[in-house]
C-alpha cells in the first residue's frame, strides 16, 4: 500500500489521541465503580441515621443503649437494647469458640498438610459451604441441633444461645478458613525449609514458624468471621427462641439485634417510634460490624506490607 508521509504522521497522531480518550473513559468508569461502593456505604449510614433520628430525639441514644428491658409493644413502651446486644454477643461468643479452633485447624491442615486432590476437594467443599443459604443452615439446626441440645443438656427447650451459636460458628467457618489459608499460603516457603533444616518436624514447623508468621492474616480472618456471625439473621431467628431478656447463661433463649429487626419490622407502623427505634438497633449493629471489619482490614494491610520487602 502506498502511503504519503503526511497521512502517516497525521493518522498516527490521531490514533494516539483516540486511544488516550478511550483510556480516560475507561479510567472514569473504573473510578466510578470504585467510588460507588463508598457512596453506597455512606448512603446506608446516612439513611440509618435519618430514620433513627426520631428515636434518638424521643428516647435518647444513651437510654436505649443502657436500657435493660425490651418491651416495644407494652404500656409504657420500653426500648432497652441491652438484652439484644448481650444476646448478639453471647451467640457470637459461642460461634467464636467453634470457628476459631476448627477454622484455624482446618486452614493449617489445608495449607500445610494436605496435598494434591485432597487439598482441592477440601477447598472446594469449603467454598460450597459459603454458598449454602443461611435458611438452610437454620433448617438443619431446627431438625438436628434443637432436639439434640434439649436432650443432651436436659433443657425444657432446645432453642438457646448455644444452639444459635453452634450453627453460626459453622456458617462462619468458610470465611475464617479461606482467609487464614490465604495468610498461611503467603508465608514464604523459605521459612518452612529453614525450620525443617533445623530439625523441626512439619508439625513443629507449622505451629512454631508458619502460624506465627501468618498470625495477622489469621486474626483478620477471625475478625471477618466475627463480623459474619454478628450480622447473621435468619439462622439465629430460627434457632435462638427470641426471648428478649438479658440471658445469664448460654442455655437460655436469647434475641439478637438482627433477629429483632427482622422479626419486628413487618409489624411496626411505618415512620412510628418503634420503627425508628429499630433503625437505631440497625445503627448500633452497623457500627459494631464496621469497626470489626475495619480492624480486620488494618491488620491484613499490615501483613501485606510485611512480606513486601
Amino acid at each position, binding site marked *: 500500500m502506498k502511503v504519503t508521509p503526511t497521512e502517516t504522521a497525521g493518522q498516527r497522531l490521531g490514533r494516539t489521541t483516540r486511544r488516550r480518550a478511550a483510556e480516560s473513559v475507561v479510567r472514569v468508569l473504573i473510578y466510578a465503580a470504585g467510588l460507588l461502593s463508598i457512596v453506597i456505604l455512606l448512603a446506608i449510614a446516612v439513611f440509618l441515621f435519618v430514620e433513627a433520628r426520631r428515636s434518638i430525639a424521643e428516647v435518647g441514644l444513651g437510654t436505649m443503649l443502657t436500657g435493660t428491658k425490651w418491651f416495644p409493644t407494652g404500656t409504657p413502651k420500653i426500648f432497652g437494647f441491652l438484652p439484644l446486644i448481650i444476646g448478639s454477643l453471647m451467640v457470637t461468643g459461642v460461634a467464636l469458640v467453634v470457628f476459631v479452633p476448627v477454622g484455624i485447624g482446618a486452614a493449617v491442615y489445608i495449607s500445610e498438610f494436605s496435598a494434591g486432590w485432597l487439598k482441592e476437594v477440601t477447598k472446594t467443599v469449603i467454598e460450597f459451604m459459603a454458598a449454602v443459604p443461611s435458611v438452610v443452615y437454620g433448617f438443619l439446626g431446627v431438625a438436628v441441633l434443637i432436639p439434640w441440645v434439649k436432650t443432651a443438656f436436659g433443657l425444657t427447650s432446645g432453642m438457646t444461645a448455644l444452639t444459635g451459636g453452634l450453627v453460626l460458628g459453622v456458617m462462619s467457618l468458610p470465611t475464617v478458613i479461606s482467609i487464614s489459608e490465604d495468610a498461611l499460603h503467603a508465608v514464604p516457603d523459605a521459612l518452612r*525449609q529453614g525450620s525443617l533444616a533445623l*530439625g523441626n518436624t512439619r508439625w513443629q514447623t507449622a505451629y512454631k514458624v508458619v502460624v506465627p*508468621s501468618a498470625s495477622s492474616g489469621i486474626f483478620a480472618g477471625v475478625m471477618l468471621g466475627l463480623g459474619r456471625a454478628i450480622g447473621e439473621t435468619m439462622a439465629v431467628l430460627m434457632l435462638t427462641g427470641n426471648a428478649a431478656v438479658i440471658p445469664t447463661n448460654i442455655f437460655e433463649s436469647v434475641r439478637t439485634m438482627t433477629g429483632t429487626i427482622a422479626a419486628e419490622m413487618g409489624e411496626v407502623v411505618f415512620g412510628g417510634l418503634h420503627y425508628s427505634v429499630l433503625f437505631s438497633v440497625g445503627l448500633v449493629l452497623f457500627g459494631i460490624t464496621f469497626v470489626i471489619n475495619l480492624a480486620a482490614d488494618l491488620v491484613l494491610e499490615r501483613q501485606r506490607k510485611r512480606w513486601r520487602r
Partner: protein
Amino acid sequence: MVMSAVLEEVAMEAPFSGTGRSRTYAEGAEEISGSFSLTDVSVAYGNETVIAGVDMLVPSRAVTALIGPSGCGKSTLLRCFNRMNDEIGNVRVGGTITLDGLDIYQKSIDPVDLRMRVGQVFQRPNPFPMSIYDNVAFGPRTQGIRKREELDAIIEDALRDAALWEEVQNHLKKHAFELSGGQQQRLCIARALATRPEVLLMDEPASALDPISTQQIEDTIAELKDRVTIVIVTHNMQQAARISDQTAFMLRESMDQPAHLVEVGDTKRMFTNPNDKRTESYITGRFG
C-alpha cells in the same frame, strides 16, 4: 579407573585436623567426625533420573565445593545430605550415603534427627519473623534447651562463630528483618550453628549478597572449617577456588541423560591441572 584414584587421593589429603576448636564444639566433638561417603548415588524426580552414579567422599572438617553449570543438580545433590529432598514429593534417592559410616537413608534414621547433625544455609537469607535472639535460639529450643544461661551462651557462641556478634550483641531483641541482607545471611549461619551440627550445607549462600557481604561470608567459612564439615554449592568458580579444599564438578551433558560427577579432587589441583577436558573447559569459562 580415574575416579577411584581421585577418591583415594582426596581421602589421603583431606585435612582431618581437629585442633583450634572453640568451646562450643569441645564436648563430645572428638569422636564425631562428620564425613560423608557417597556410593552410586542417584536422584529421580518421578520417572526422570536427574543425577546418577555419584561416588565421592566428603572429608571431615574441610570445605567441599560443588560446582557446575545451572541445572546440573548441585542443589539437588546437596539436599540429599540432610534428606531435604524428602520434603519435596515424588523424589527418590538411590545408592548409599553414609555419615560417619551410618547409612542416613536406612529406615531407622529419622530425617528430623539427621538435620540436627547436618545443618543448612539457603541461597537467600530466610530469617524467621522474630527477634535475632529467638532466631538463633530456635534450633536449641527444639532440642529441648530451656535454661536461660545455657541458651545465652549457645547464642553468643553461634553469633561469634558466624562473625555477627560484634554487630548485634546490644540488639539481640531487635527484629531479624531489620538487619541487612548480609547480616541476615550470617544470622542464618548462626541459627544453623546453634544446633551444633557436624556438617553445614550451604546452597550458594552468597549469591544474593553484595561483594562485601560475600567476603564476610567467605571469611566466616574459613573460620568454621576446622570445626565443622562444610559442603557448599557455588556458581562462582573463584569462590570455589578461594574457599574450598575439595571440589566436585558436576555436569548434565544433555537433557536426555542424568547429571553425573565429572571429576572430584583437591581444589588446588583441579584448578591448576584438571584431569578431565570438560572440567578444564568449565573452569576456564568456555561454557556454563
